[in-house]
């Protein structure tokens, strides 16, 4: 046995949750650190998973139960790992716990909610709507605790909150806290973020109001999203009857992401089904280079090919502009077969933006992680007791992320049981 049998998991998305639950069910003590105020990462913001079109909340229900009932897992949300020192089998980890201002000692009541009127952008919905500065992050949030955006409050609101919290439900004086834990091995499951679509200058995101990204589309389709599951375009709240998907928006592009993000084809095909199911008589056009529906996913693709209202155009989109009156995006593309230029108006355009590893966004002091030229973590044989899991290593879909997380636990266990 190493000096310490505990495992640290950084990141509470599907990879991190799976790793934490797997390790704890084997019998290990686990510390799970998540920077958001809730567990679930990117997947909890998805409407449905491909290819079954099942809701992520179903599996999350099981995974959260695995965590809730297991005394071997300690979860820190709103927390970040600041520093790791030591070596395989004996690491000392410093965790910074950021203030939630909601203590969890006493319930948040209607009086608290009434005390706050200020609204903040709802980051869970990628800023497409607003939420009160005192809010539950989402319907099935775990831990089931509110969050307060203290900086957004007016002084009156702060005072009212104080008055409403004699039992200490809300503590505006909460400070960030440092916790030190000793662990034997570390699993980094910090996941990914969508490629910043604003940098795709020619594709009009940020300039054309009805050009959105694929992650936004997931929220627009979700019952728990900003439009309560109605597919409505941003400019006028009308149902888009004609929607284009632009594949490889940034991916497979030397100027942006040279690699293929592996999941965007299936993602857009799935979203094409959202459009077809939610908007009667809608028409969908998918601009692609290659449709990469690997393995059994192929069936999902050829089922869509039978829908006469979905067209596939092989060709790269060169430019998207906006009709100033209708606010319709105008897509200019080079259709490879039969080799002609094309310009067409749509009601809405969805950019299939790719996967960017987020590990380099907030480096951890004390560890020298090996990353490839794109910032993906490379498990090196000399990495000691630190292992990557999921999209931190390469672009992966949910199932492969989970499998990879399970494999990472195996490696971590070998260190802590050494």
């Amino acid at each position: 046995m190493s000096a310490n049998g505990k495992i640290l998991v950084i990141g509470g998305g599907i990879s991190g949750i799976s790793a934490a639950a797997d390790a704890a069910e084997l019998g290990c003590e686990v510390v799970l650190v998540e920077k958001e105020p809730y567990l679930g990462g990117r997947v909890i913001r998805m409407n449905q998973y491909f290819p079954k079109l099942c809701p992520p909340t179903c599996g999350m229900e099981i995974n959260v139960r695995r965590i809730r009932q297991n005394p071997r897992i300690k979860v820190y949300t709103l927390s970040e790992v600041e520093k790791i020192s030591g070596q395989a089998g004996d690491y000392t980890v410093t965790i910074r716990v950021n203030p939630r201002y909601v203590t969890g000692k006493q319930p948040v009541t209607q009086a608290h909610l009434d005390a706050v009127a200020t609204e903040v952008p709802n980051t869970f919905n990628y800023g497409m709507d607003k939420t009160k500065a005192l809010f539950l992050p989402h319907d099935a949030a775990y831990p089931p605790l509110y969050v307060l955006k203290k900086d957004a409050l007016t002084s009156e609101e702060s005072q009212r909150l104080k008055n409403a919290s004699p039992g200490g439900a809300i503590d505006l004086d909460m400070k960030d806290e440092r916790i030190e834990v000793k662990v034997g091995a570390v699993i980094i499951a910090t996941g990914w973020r969508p490629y910043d679509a604003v940098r795709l200058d020619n594709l009009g995101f940020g300039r054309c109001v009805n050009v959105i990204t694929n992650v936004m589309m997931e929220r627009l389709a979700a019952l728990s999203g900003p439009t309560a599951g109605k597919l409505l375009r941003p400019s006028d709240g009308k149902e888009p009857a004609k929607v284009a998907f632009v594949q490889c928006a940034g991916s497979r592009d030397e100027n942006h992401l040279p690699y293929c993000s592996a999941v965007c084809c299936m993602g857009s095909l799935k979203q094409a089904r959202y459009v077809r199911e939610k908007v009667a008589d809608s028409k969908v056009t998918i601009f692609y280079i290659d449709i990469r529906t690997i393995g059994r996913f192929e069936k999902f693709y050829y089922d869509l090919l039978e829908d006469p209202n979905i067209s596939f155009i092989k060709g790269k989109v060169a430019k998207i502009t906006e009709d100033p009156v209708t606010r319709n995006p105008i897509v200019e593309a080079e259709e490879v077969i039969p080799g002609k230029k094309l310009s067409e108006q749509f009601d809405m355009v969805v950019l299939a933006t790719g996967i960017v590893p987020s590990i380099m966004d907030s480096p951890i002091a004390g560890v020298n992680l090996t990353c490839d030229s794109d910032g993906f973590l490379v498990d090196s044989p000399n990495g000691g007791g630190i292992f990557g899991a999921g999209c931190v290593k390469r672009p992966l879909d949910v199932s492969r992320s989970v499998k990879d997380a399970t494999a990472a636990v195996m490696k971590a266990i070998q260190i802590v049981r050494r």
Partner: protein
Amino acid sequence: MASKIGVYICTGYGIGEALNVEQLSSVATKEYKVDVCKTVSSCEADDLDFIKKDITEQGLERAVIAGPSPRFYATGSFPENVIVEFVNLREQVVWCQPANNEDTQMLAEDYLRMGIVKVQKMQPVEAFPESKDIDKTIMVVGGGIAGITAALEAAATGYNTVLIEKSAQLGGWMAKLKKSIPRTPPYEALEDTGIEEKIKQVQSNPKVKIFTSTEIETIKGGPGLFDVTLKGPGAASFRVGAIVQATGWKPFEPKNLDHLGFRKFANVITNVELEEMAKNGRIARKSDGKDAKRVVFVQCAGSRDKAHLSYCSSICCLNSLKQAAYVREQSSEGKAYIIYDNLRAPGHYEYFYKKMQQDPGVFLTKGDVVRVAENADKSLTVDVEKTLLGENISVDADLVVLAVGMVPCSADGEKIRTVKDAKAFLASGEGGPQVDVMKKRIEDIGQHEGTEILNLDYRQGPDLPTLQYGFPDSHFICFPYETRRTGIYTAGAVRAPMDGLGSVEDATGAAFKAIQCVEMLSRGETVLPRAGDRSYPEFFLQRCTQCKRCTEECPFGTLNEDVKGTPLPNPTRCRRCGICLGACPERIINFKNYSVDMIASMIKAVEVPDEDEEKPRVLVLACENDAYPAFDTVGLKRLQYSPFIRVIPVRCLGSVNVIWINESLAKGFDGVLLLGCKYGDDYQCHFIRGSELMNTRGDNVREKLKQMALENERVQLHQIQVSEYEKIPTIIGEFMETIEQVGMNPFKGM
């Protein structure tokens, strides 16, 4: 019932304002005379700490906490050895019903009654007796890259491992490759496979016992207690705890692809044959042994074609790019043409694709290969239509390589069993219309017999059930390792077409799951989806009528049968869904904490008003993982629905015993709503077939309704996803209207 019971009623979250808590408390104190009944101001940390402390101080054996949904609590922190249950007053009473209302109060009181009765009927759970005897050896079937990896990883974690390989050598397909596609940054250069080193490692690992040229004669028992007998030169018998099946793949045989000239023209070969040539030194024309300088690769030869191999084999594009590199390395004059439909180089493999695109000797184009013709000198001409250039082209080639896909080396246990059953039926000499059905069945799927791999001694077949296209894969995106046979995990190309890197990851994870399974079993716990559950079904076999419903319906093949048809339980195979409990007409299958009597008693605890009060009662049996949380979300959203329903969460809709429906109707409930998960091809039931089985039991329900002269509409099943909370008020509203139309149940008060 001497257990000391305590009830804690939470008054926070609006509960205290909406309900008469004093009156509610009197249900506990006066009706049920519980030992302790206290109110707490919330169920947040401070109050929960008090409750936990009080449970210990009062020496309670059972406790009921009435407040937020059971899904709210971190139950891992509750005192051990105390049965704690939760009454959902928050999400499913005060948040979805008007405050200070008679019907709301009645709802809360009924839920409290049900909660108290529930803990009264629950018994402490003890681990199944076999948990003391769990063997932790891991057996890996298949000695390719996935199998070797699984064995090495299990051994490195400290577990004794047995590796079984059918052929004489380890290494599988990987050992037949000249090179691997790039797996490490910058993902551009071909790499050594590294398989020789892996083979050496596994052969010299003292924790791994290897059997080559060996197959499995039989596997009896269940996880933790698998008794394996091998056949072959190293025939042996031993016990193992869990199994990783890494039996790999075989190349698709490109039959009926006449237009491609396979087996017709000497120089049309498969990608597997080209690899063999390359590994042995030289890529040459089959016809005359001369160096092949112009090589055309035909992608998706049979793949992605419903007439042949419907799916995409994932790696053929990359493999052809690799083989194009071989052609280019062999000769500076070498030219490779790759004709594809969609070039699939996912993730980092894009770099390799790009690298090959830059090679002037490699020509890539989208197109349809419509014909391969042989010339007088045995060279070939390949006609391609719909190319990227927009025109049809013809390419001359020394060799045409068909990129054929991967077919899993699996056996469909369910089909094999079906064939055997059909044969047994015919052998029995029983006549009737079934004879032709059975004959047809044997004709259709008879070829599966003789394909056995694991040879499991399971009532439901000797191998894992397969999913689509013969892959014994999981159907669960969130739980990709969950096969339908506990303790047996598939890894590598047998479960999905995948590359070597994917196989290594897959095998590492599968080996972990195998280890996790034996460790959990040794603590008396089951694995996913009810991971950690220590309850298990017990059978009161003296009353068994050998109807075989439990042995037939168990989705995990848990139960074997003796010659008479009596179930033979295997608790280590069990996933605790309770489908057997639901299936049993004699009600002799029960868990310590989930029994026919427990739910029936909860139903009986509900106070059903007389007919003239015009307050109907509807029982809702809801899947605890999906429908029940959806009810919670309804509350969170403050949507309202009829106060006349009484919701009981069940482990799975398949665990619903029809007696519960019958008894509720006999008691005067006006209707029963069954809410379970989606079934069909894209089923979402985490116990595979629970809601579907309940639907088929509907016949029994209708029969009973007929006997009672009640209307069929009084019992309905709906499929609902956890995310579809907004449907709940509608479903309930429509059901209440139906009840109004058919009228109140005449059995009230009887």
